[in-house]
C-alpha cells in the first residue's frame, strides 16, 4: 500500500508578473509544494481560488481595480473558502497588519522576506498554525493590549479549564508551543491538543486570532506577562 502523498497546493496572487514568476520559482523549488493557480487582480483571484481550491494562497495586499488583497481575503473567508491566506506586502506598516488580521488572514509577511521564510510560512499555515513576521508578533500583542476590551464578551461562557486558561494566557504573551510546554512541564503534543481545544471553544481561526480574542475580551490585560 502506498501512502497518498499530498502536496500542498499553493496559489499566487500579485499584480506584478515578475513577482509572481519569482514566487513560482521559489515555491516549485520545494518538493511538497506545487503552484496550482495565479491571478493578477482581485476579481481574477476570486475566480481562480474557487476553481483551483488551493490550500494556501499568497496574496499581495495591493492590487489595481476595485478589490485589493484585503477585500479578496474577506470575501473568500466570508464565503467559507478553506484556503488559508498569507498576506504579502512591500512595506512593513501597521495599518495593513491589523486589517489583515481582522480580515482573517493566517499570516502576514514582507514580500521580500528571504525565500526560506516564505516557504516556512506556507508550510506552517498549511499545517493550521499562523505565522507572523517575528518583529510583528510583539507589535500585534502590544497593539491588541492597548485596545479596550469589547463590551459584552463574557469570558465565562468560554468554559475553559484552568489548564486551558493558563495556556491561553501564555499564547497571548507570544509564547510558542515549545515554550509553553517547557513552562508547564507538558509535552508539546499535549500543548498542541489543548490549543486546538481552545481554538474551537473560542471560535478562533488560528493562534493569531486567539491572541486577538484574548485581548479584546479583556481576558488578558497588558502587563499580564506570564
Amino acid at each position, binding site marked *: 500500500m502506498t501512502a497518498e502523498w499530498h502536496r500542498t497546493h499553493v496559489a499566487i496572487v500579485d499584480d506584478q508578473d*515578475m513577482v509572481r514568476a519569482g514566487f513560482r*520559482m521559489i515555491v516549485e523549488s520545494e518538493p511538497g509544494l506545487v503552484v496550482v493557480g495565479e491571478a493578477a487582480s482581485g476579481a481574477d483571484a476570486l475566480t481562480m481560488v474557487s476553481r483551483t481550491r488551493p490550500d494556501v494562497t499568497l496574496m499581495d495586499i*495591493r492590487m*489595481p481595480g476595485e478589490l*485589493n488583497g484585503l477585500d479578496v481575503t474577506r470575501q473568500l473567508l466570508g464565503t467559507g473558502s478553506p484556503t488559508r491566506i498569507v498576506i504579502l506586502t512591500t512595506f512593513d*506598516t501597521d495599518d495593513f497588519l491589523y486589517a489583515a488580521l481582522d480580515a482573517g488572514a493566517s499570516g502576514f509577511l514582507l514580500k*521580500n522576506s528571504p525565500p526560506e521564510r516564505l516557504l516556512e510560512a506556507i508550510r506552517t499555515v498549511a499545517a493550521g498554525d499562523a505565522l507572523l513576521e517575528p518583529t510583528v508578533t510583539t507589535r500585534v500583542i502590544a497593539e491588541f493590549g492597548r485596545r479596550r476590551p469589547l463590551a459584552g464578551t463574557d469570558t465565562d461562557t468560554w468554559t475553559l479549564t484552568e489548564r486551558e486558561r493558563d495556556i491561553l494566557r501564555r499564547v497571548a504573551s507570544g509564547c510558542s508551543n515549545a515554550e509553553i510546554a517547557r513552562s508547564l512541564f507538558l509535552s508539546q503534543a499535549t500543548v498542541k491538543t489543548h490549543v486546538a481545544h481552545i481554538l474551537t471553544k473560542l471560535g478562533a481561526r488560528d493562534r493569531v486570532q486567539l491572541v486577538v480574542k484574548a485581548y479584546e475580551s479583556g481576558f488578558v490585560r497588558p502587563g499580564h506577562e506570564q
Partner: protein
Amino acid sequence: MDLRRSLGFGSVNRASASYAVSSPGEPCLITLGDDPSPSLLILQSESLAVEYAAQCGGVEALTRPGGVHPAVAPVVLWVLLVAEQLAVHPPGMLVAILGASAVAVALCARRSRPLASVLVVLAVVTVQAPLGVSTKDTSLPVLPVFWAIFLAFSALHGRQRLVGLAAVVVALTSGMLLDGGHVDLANLEHSALFAVALCLPAAITGTYVDSRHRYALALEEGARAREAQRRAETATAVAEERLRIARELHDVIAHGVGLMGVQAGAVRRRLRADQKDLASALLTVEETGRAAITELGHAVGVLRDPAGEMAPQPTLAQLRALVEAARESGQQVSLTLRGPHEDIPVGVGVTAYRIVQELLTNARKHARGNHVAVTVARGCEDLTIEALNATPSAGRGRRGPSPGGHGLIGIRERVATYGGSVEITNADNTFAVTARLPITR
C-alpha cells in the same frame, strides 16, 4: 475676472507688467516686461490696468499724470509773473521779481518736499506785502497762493496740512491788510471775497487730485496684496504637488526593488551547494534590496497622505477606467491611444495617468459640459498627452484657467521631473494642453 482670457491673450509665462496712467478716464498703457514679443495694451481705465498688471505678475507704477519734469511749471509761472511785472511796472517791482524767483525755486521742490515748498511760497507772499509789493495790480500774490492752497490739499495731510493752511491764512491776511506796505482796511472787505473765491477752487481741485492719487495707491496696494497671496498659494501648491510626485516615485521604485529581490531569491534557491559564491552574491542583492525598501518605506511614509493607499500607482492601463469614471460623472470625454504602450517605463506611465487625471479635473471645473478630447500617443522617443476642449463663452462669469493657476501646476511639475515640456494655448475658443514626456531606455 481674468483679463487675459477675456481679452484673448494666450499664455503669458512670466511677465512683469508696468502701467502708466495718463489721466483719469483715459486709456492706460501696459507694457509686458519679459514677454518675448512685448505687447502694448490699451485699457480703458486705471483700475483695469492695475488688475491686469497684477495678474501678469508684477505691479510697478510708472508715472503719475503728466510725467512732466517738475521744474517746467514753476519756470512757466516765473516767466509769466516777471513778464507781468516788467509790463506793468508796479511799485516794489524788484522785490516782486525776487519774490517770484524764490517762489519758482520753491515750487520746483513741491513733489519731494511739499510742506517746505508750500511754506516758502507762503512766506515769500507774506513778506512781500510789507516790503512794498502791491497786491492789487498784478497777479503775483494770487497765483502762488492758489498753487500753495492746491498743494496743501493735494500733497499735504494731517498736521502738515493744518500747518500749510495756517500759513495760507497768514499770507492772505498779510496780503489783504497791507498793500504796498500800508495797512488798508478798506481793502479787506473787497479782498475777503476775493480770498474766498481764490481758496475754494484751489481747495476743491487739490482735494480731488489727492483723492485720485489715494485711489490709485489703494488699487496698487490691493493688487500687490492679491499678487503676493497668489504667489504664496502657488508656491504652496507647487510644494504639495512635488511631495505627491516624490511619494509616488518612491513607491514605484520600492516595488521595482522588491521585484529584483524576489527574483534574486528565487535564483539563489536553485543554485547547487557548490555555488556558494554565487549564492552569496545573490544574498547580498536580496539583503540590500530589503534595506532599500525599508528606507523607501520611510520616505513614502513621511510623504504620504493620512489615508493610506491600497492600490498600486495607476498607469496607462488604468486610463480607460479613469475615463469611464469621468463619463459616469457626466463629463463628455473621448480617449484615443496611439502607439505601443508596453515598453513605457512605469514612472512615465504613472505621470501620464496623473496628467490625464488633472486635465479631466480641470476641464470639469472650467468647461463643464463641453467635450474633452484626450489623446495619448507614443512617439519614437516620447509620449505625448493632449487634451482639447471648447472654452465656455465669455461672460459666463467663470474664472478661466490661467496658466499659472493651481489646476495646471501639477502638470508642469510632473513634466519638469522628466525633463519634458508642456504647451498651453487658448485660441479660437479652444483650450489645448499638450504635454510631452521623453522616454529613454
